């Protein structure tokens, strides 16, 4: 059994309001290195909330999230930003890229934030863009790329920082089926080649079909967990 990258215990997240919503209601979960896992469930079941908690974008009401021996629920806002920069890769549904920067620059930018050398940035950006099938499009800005190509740049960007794992919330929601399968293919390949851990939130059956582990969620709880 390979090493755990995330260990979640007794996680609760309640949105206060006229009617408090228990969006995450007692979740225990271990994600191991090299997994390709999909979180599935009906709309409003709490997938995004869980992913945001795992990514340190939001704070739970109770429970612990241990990543790399650190319980991120105990980190301050500023520590969390820094933690995200060095440990977690993100692919969002949209608005992943800086519109005024080219594909290469978008991928380099995150490495710049990590203070990596220019040579390293250029080399890795080039290599990753090639890996996501965008060789020749390095100098294009997001506006000049298709939705699927933009998501592939986002995947390259997510990997550029050498994170422990990549969180992707509905990465294919805006894509046609051809782009979706291309993106999945690329992510699977990176999962194999770089042993990169991917965690998706999705209700896209094409994604679920490709996942190696599928965690079913309903009303903020895990209701199923199957590995292939």
């Amino acid at each position, binding site marked *: 059994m390979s090493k755990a990258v995330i260990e979640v215990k007794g996680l609760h997240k309640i949105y206060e309001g006229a009617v408090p919503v228990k969006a995450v209601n007692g979740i225990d979960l271990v994600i191991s290195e090299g997994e390709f896992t999909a979180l599935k469930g009906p709309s409003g079941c709490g997938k995004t909330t869980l992913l*945001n908690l795992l*990514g340190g*974008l*939001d704070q739970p009401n109770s429970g612990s999230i241990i990543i790399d021996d650190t319980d991120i629920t105990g980190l301050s806002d*500023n520590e969390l*930003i*820094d933690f*995200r*920069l*060095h440990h977690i890769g*993100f692919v*969002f549904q949209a*608005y*992943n890229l*800086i*519109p*005024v*920067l080219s594909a290469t*620059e978008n991928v*380099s*930018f*995150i490495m*710049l*934030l*990590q203070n990596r050398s220019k040579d390293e940035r250029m080399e890795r950006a080039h290599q990753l863009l090639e890996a996501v099938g965008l060789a020749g499009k390095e100098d294009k800005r997001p506006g000049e790329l298709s939705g699927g190509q933009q998501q592939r740049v986002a995947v390259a*960007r997510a990997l550029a*920082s050498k994170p422990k794992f990549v969180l992707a919330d509905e990465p294919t929601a805006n894509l046609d089926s051809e782009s979706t399968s291309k993106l999945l293919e690329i992510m699977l390949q990176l999962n194999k080649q770089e042993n990169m851990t991917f965690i998706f939130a999705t209700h896209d059956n094409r994604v679920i079909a490709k996942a190696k582990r599928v965690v079913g969620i309903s009303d903020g709880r895990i209701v199923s967990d199957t590995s292939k």
Partner: protein
Amino acid sequence: MIFKVAWRNIWRSRIRSIIVLSSIAIGIWAGLVIIGFSFGMNNERTSAAIGATLGHSQAHHRAFIEDPQPNAMLSEAIIKELETTLDAQNFVTGYAKRTVLQGMVASPKKTRATRIIGVNAEAERKVTTIPNYMVEGDFFESKTRKGVVISEKLAQKMGLSMRKKLVLTFQDHRGIIHKATFRVSGMYRTLNSAWDELNLYVQQDDIEKIVGGSLIHEVLISYDKSEDTEQKTKAIVSQIKEPTVITSWKENSPELGFADDMMGIMLVLVLGIIMLALLFGIINNMLMAVLERRRELGMLMAVGMNKRKVFLMILLETLMLGFVAGPTGIVLGDVTVRAMMRIGLDLSTKKDGLAELGVGSVIYPEIVPEYYLIIAIMVVTTALIAALFPAYKALKLNPVTAIRGN
């Protein structure tokens, strides 16, 4: 790369940025033109007053300053000493000894209080520009005995014209009252109508003959240039001892000196108001820029761009606006002022109003280098202050809500 991002972000909403950039540039341009003309007008007024009436500095007996009585005069010995001192200063281009008497002027129609200035026409010509202000006759060139040069304005008020007789009444240093008839041999008009109404010129020789001796109350001193008049005056003062007192033009015309000192403050105030208007323009622009990009900024914070860098990026964008527009405005302003220095601004239709202010009808602006620096500093400061609120707003974005997009 943060520079690159900030720079490119400026050009994302091209029209909006161009509007902000132009407003900053126009604000600076206007500031420079206002400064140029204010200095031009003020300097013209000052040098006209110095030339025509004030001199760069004046020497008097202390008693004369306290109360200008005829007996508060400078003795021959004192004048000798003063002349030696003045001759030794190479910046002194000339001096004119004058008799100054308070008296009455009477025409067949009217009688008025007046100030009689007894001059040596030759010496006076070296020191003052009064001969340039003659509208009729001349400034004692013809040496007519018992001629008097009065202002056009006084002539009107007294119903006098060229060659007409008038009677001057005054007391001499011994307290004897003299009454003498003079004939109008010239008329002048300076830019200072208050001065014109009060002062008239006669020849010292005529006064000496009437009172039977030399009578000097005032020495008008002129320098090579109008710069550093305070220091030059101080240099003379340090060589002079009581009872002689040297006063600079600023002291002799407090209202002119005050205007000179106040102008700097006024101009900084005007610039401040321009900057205040720019401040709100820039804040508005940057706030829009931040709100438009809140998803992107949220994403950047989500993937690990720390608050310091986000803050810096917004700050940089705002400063860049200033760095682009600032020099543009300064160059435009400079070109305009330089062009106007050659052409001048003809305000002849408003001539009378300007004459009241002591200014000619064509105004030439001036370049005042230190204001370029002041403006540059003000623009950068304004941009910095304007950046703070939008940058703060950017920091307050919550990545989760910003990305979700509501």
